[in-house]
């Protein structure tokens, strides 16, 4: 027993130090490409920390988004940055990527150390035992329609958070689209290995996404994790030269993007009229309603995340005529 506890301590300490080290390297490393790769490694290590903290739902979302999608977005942006920096490069003033060499700035160091000390003191002065809202969650879990507490919170108890989150995703995409985005540089001629890998991986990813969506009712998983895996499949397809069929680019794409928000809003209106309270489901049908909401949210999250990487709205026939 002693040995197990010692092992856990060693693991947790190493993981914590590893996180801090990777983050500081990612932020200080002069080469931006290396910094992004270090940041992706940091995301993967963070997923381990979530597992260690008994938060497997968070770990699943982190592994797909923090380590996968954010890295893809950052690398795509770096590629765009390099091409536009070489275009605009002024003679005699080479595009510099590394941080400018500056004398160490003592004022920020002192201020930040005192901020860190203050925050650390506050964290350590919290009571070591606090149940928070877990008693209330456990008490209402029976009527929520699902048995995974995290899904119950996301899709039932605090579903207005998720409703607003769908809107935020949509807003971010609208922002990216209205800025014109940037052309994603794709692999124009994927080799046979990459091509076969994508053909094999994408169906598996869709299968994993469906499983996560279904299993979310009673085990770690759910709309967010499933949507991120779907988004990752979309990113893989986009990077290997797949194009959205022109007929699907106009209305079907936009319908998929708003499916989550629209279903949530419809559900909100119906529950408001029927039950008198926003997004409070009748407990007999709660399980079914949550599954409908989750399916729509998964499709929207997946398509939105892939569209964020694409940058600009895909061309469709109407734009040309």
């Amino acid at each position: 027993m002693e040995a197990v506890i010692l092992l856990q301590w060693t693991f947790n300490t190493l993981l914590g130090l590893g996180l801090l080290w990777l983050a500081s390297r990612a932020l200080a490393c002069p080469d931006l490409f290396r910094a992004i790769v270090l940041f992706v490694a940091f995301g993967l290590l963070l997923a381990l920390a979530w597992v260690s903290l008994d938060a497997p739902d968070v770990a699943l979302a982190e592994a797909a988004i923090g380590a996968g999608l954010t890295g893809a977005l950052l690398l795509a942006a770096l590629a765009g940055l390099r091409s536009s920096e070489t275009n605009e490069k002024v003679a005699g003033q080479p595009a510099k990527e590394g941080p400018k060499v500056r004398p160490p700035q003592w004022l920020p160091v002192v201020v930040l150390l005192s901020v860190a000390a203050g925050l650390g003191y506050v964290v350590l002065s919290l009571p070591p035992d606090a149940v928070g809202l877990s008693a209330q969650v456990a008490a209402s879990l029976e009527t929520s329609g699902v048995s995974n507490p995290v899904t119950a919170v996301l899709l039932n108890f605090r579903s207005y958070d998720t409703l607003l989150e769908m809107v935020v995703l949509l807003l971010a995409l609208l922002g990216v689209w209205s800025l014109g985005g940037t052309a994603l540089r794709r692999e124009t001629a994927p080799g046979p290995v990459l091509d076969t890998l994508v053909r094999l991986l994408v169906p598996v990813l869709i299968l994993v996404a469906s499983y996560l969506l279904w299993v979310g009712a009673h085990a770690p998983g759910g709309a967010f994790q499933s949507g991120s895996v779907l988004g990752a499949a979309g990113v893989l397809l986009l990077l290997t030269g797949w194009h959205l069929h022109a007929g699907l680019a106009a209305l079907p794409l936009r319908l998929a993007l708003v499916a989550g928000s629209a279903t949530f809003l419809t559900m909100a209106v119906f529950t408001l009229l029927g039950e008198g309270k926003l997004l409070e489901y009748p407990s007999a049908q709660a399980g079914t309603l949550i599954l409908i909401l989750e399916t729509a949210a998964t499709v929207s999250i997946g398509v939105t995340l892939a569209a964020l990487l694409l940058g600009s709205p895909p061309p469709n026939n109407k734009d040309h005529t």
Partner: protein
Amino acid sequence: MNAVFLYALVGVGLFSLGLYALIVHAHLLRKILALNVMGNGAFLVLVALARRTGDAQPDAVPQAMVITGIVIAVSATALALTLMLKLTSETGRAELSDDQRE
């Protein structure tokens, strides 16, 4: 002190590291990385403090908030990166210039 506070302190450390990098680095891509590290530090504090339930199930509400937060963070990052690329194609530099203040 137990593992909960270890991870909460690591979260505080990440937040401070990110805040420092946000202040001292001029390159916008590095500022975006720094913001992401800060966000992850805040998430780590939230989830670690949700684990203070002893042997019982951890508090699900902060965990759900963090899952929402991760998805929001990635969409905000995508928007920030697009803004950065627009700025670079306008000015040729991925940095905010100090000159415009005067």
